[in-house]
């Protein structure tokens, strides 16, 4: 039986964690994710959730406590954002290397400085290489569904890796939208209790997170890397099962009107809906444009990106992060996906919506027309274009 409620994105991820019957939630509050621990503590106080909430003194401790709890066999969830995620950085590698299926909701927010609390993907992009899976929600329904599925995927014996579920600051974390959710019985059926292959147990002593010398370190890394590389079929299988059970379809990457498109705009997160609306409007004007939404950024969907975008004249990447001195991080991934293809579209990079600047229909029109002009000229120069920026407010370097 499906129920529907109007809730904020943070409430959707907290609800998913509750319905997943998490055992332990170590948390340190940070804007825009604070409502997650608030809701969890409310569930515990109301007797709706039988879990241990550990209030820690920093995010570094939150993820450390999550590691301990997960290694002891608990199902663990937490939430953070921006500086909080950055403070976790060194510990994130340990969680994934220990193959602990911790699930963490991220209210995707800009990193300081200047200090800013709004939507931006720089925080999770900076954790790209930590060996965690990364999922990005387009709306609150996806935030709920991906959070719930993340437990199943993370805990699958063929995967056993932690997962981040990104939801854009405020645009999702604080926005009220209708969210469908299944009954507790249905969730229990989809997500049985976590059965860890190994746990910390005083009766059966075991070492977790041991020292690895040059004789074994690379094998650990290779094994971990292969787990991520081999996870796509498991993710697809669980997405498919979710669709059968609950009727909502998920793909690691989703195309929209891509078949005959000259230009395909690739995006992640909450701008994906606005992008689809922009595509519909541009199609009415005869512009052959399509959209691609990346839901699973790690493992990266190389093959699917090539299949969806290979026929276009140009791929325009619209990304909410920048790697200064390079381009946006997604540019590198998508260029990499095409590098060994016999033929490939031009690939053009656009920086949008940093620090919560609104991403509008007009922005996507500008991206499409710029990219189409580049396709006509047969060259992408400059490679990286900043959209909706006021040059008068941005003096040249050194000033």
């Amino acid at each position: 039986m499906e129920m529907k409620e109007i809730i904020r994105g943070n409430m959707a991820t907290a609800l998913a964690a509750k319905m997943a019957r998490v055992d332990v939630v170590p948390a340190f509050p940070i804007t825009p994710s604070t409502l997650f621990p608030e809701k969890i503590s409310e569930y515990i106080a109301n007797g709706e959730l039988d879990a241990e909430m550990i209030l820690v003194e920093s995010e570094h401790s939150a993820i450390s406590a999550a590691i301990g709890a997960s290694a002891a066999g608990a199902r663990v969830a937490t939430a953070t954002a921006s500086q909080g995620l950055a403070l976790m950085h060194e510990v994130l590698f340990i969680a994934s290397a220990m193959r602990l299926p911790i699930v963490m909701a991220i209210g995707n927010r800009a990193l300081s400085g200047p200090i800013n609390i709004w939507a931006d993907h720089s925080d999770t992009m900076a954790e790209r290489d930590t060996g965690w899976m990364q999922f990005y929600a387009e709306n609150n329904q996806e935030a709920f569904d991906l959070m719930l599925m993340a437990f199943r995927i993370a805990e699958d014996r063929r995967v056993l890796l932690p997962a981040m579920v990104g939801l854009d600051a405020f645009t999702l974390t604080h926005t009220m939208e209708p969210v469908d959710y299944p009954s507790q019985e249905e969730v229990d059926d989809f997500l049985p209790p976590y059965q860890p292959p190994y746990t910390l147990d005083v009766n059966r002593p075991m070492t977790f997170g041991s020292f690895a010398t040059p004789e074994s370190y690379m094998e650990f890394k290779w094994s971990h890397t292969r787990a991520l590389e081999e996870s796509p079929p498991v993710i697809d299988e669980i997405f498919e099962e979710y669709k059968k059970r609950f009727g909502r379809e998920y793909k690691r990457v989703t195309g929209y009107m891509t078949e005959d498109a000259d230009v395909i705009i690739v995006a992640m997160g909450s701008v994906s809906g606005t992008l689809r609306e922009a595509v519909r409007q541009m199609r009415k004007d005869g512009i052959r444009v399509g959209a691609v939404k990346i839901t699973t950024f790690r493992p990266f969907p190389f093959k699917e990106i090539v299949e969806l975008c290979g026929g276009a004249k140009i791929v325009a990447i619209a990304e909410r992060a920048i790697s200064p001195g390079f381009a946006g991080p997604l540019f590198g991934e998508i260029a990499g996906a095409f590098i060994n293809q016999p033929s490939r579209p031009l690939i053009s990079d656009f920086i949008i919506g940093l620090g919560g600047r609104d991403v509008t229909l007009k922005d996507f029109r500008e991206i499409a027309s710029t990219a189409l002009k580049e396709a006509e000229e047969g060259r992408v120069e400059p490679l990286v274009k900043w959209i909706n920026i006021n040059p008068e407010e941005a003096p040249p370097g050194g000033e």
Partner: protein
Amino acid sequence: MRAGKFYNVSSYGAAVGAGESEQEVMTVYEVRFHGRGGQGAVTAANILAVAAFKEGKEVQAFPMFGVERRGAPVMAFTRIDDKPIDLKTLIYSPDFVVVLDPTLMDVIDVTEGLKEGGPVLINTTKSPEEFDLGSCKVYTVDATKIAVENGLGTPTNPIVNTAIIGSFAKVSGIVNLDSVLAAVRELSPVKKEENVKAAEEAYKAVKGM
């Protein structure tokens, strides 16, 4: 324009909104609420969303992100549509504007971006004729008096959101009163019946119809 400073990042978007209205193809109905932090503008937007949702509509409600401070001018928004709402942008050209605090009329241009001839509902003791908002259609209601009489908030800091949503139902016709009352009952943390009564009274008391 003084209003600009309250729009922060959207000062770019304000110009964008003007261009977009020409290629408007959506059935979406957009409402902007102006209030001061603490008056319940965000909850007003949520109540409207829940009320419309009860009538089978797709909805979205959000605050002007991150600027809520007690007493400071704040905005909140509701989108209502017959089909799923893909748009995640801020609202630049609302169909309807609700003003929860009369003192805002001297501080900001509440009609900014409002669709030509669009309605503005103001919580004030004044009558609609006392406002000159160009082609905009003005409606007024003394929501403060209704809130105070029903013991909502304090006389110096009345919570007027539930009352003014009653008036909104009457003026807009977008949601019916019963759905609004059900939503008010659902979203009021305390004094549920007082809030419902305020919404009912304000439904009847609105001027300019």
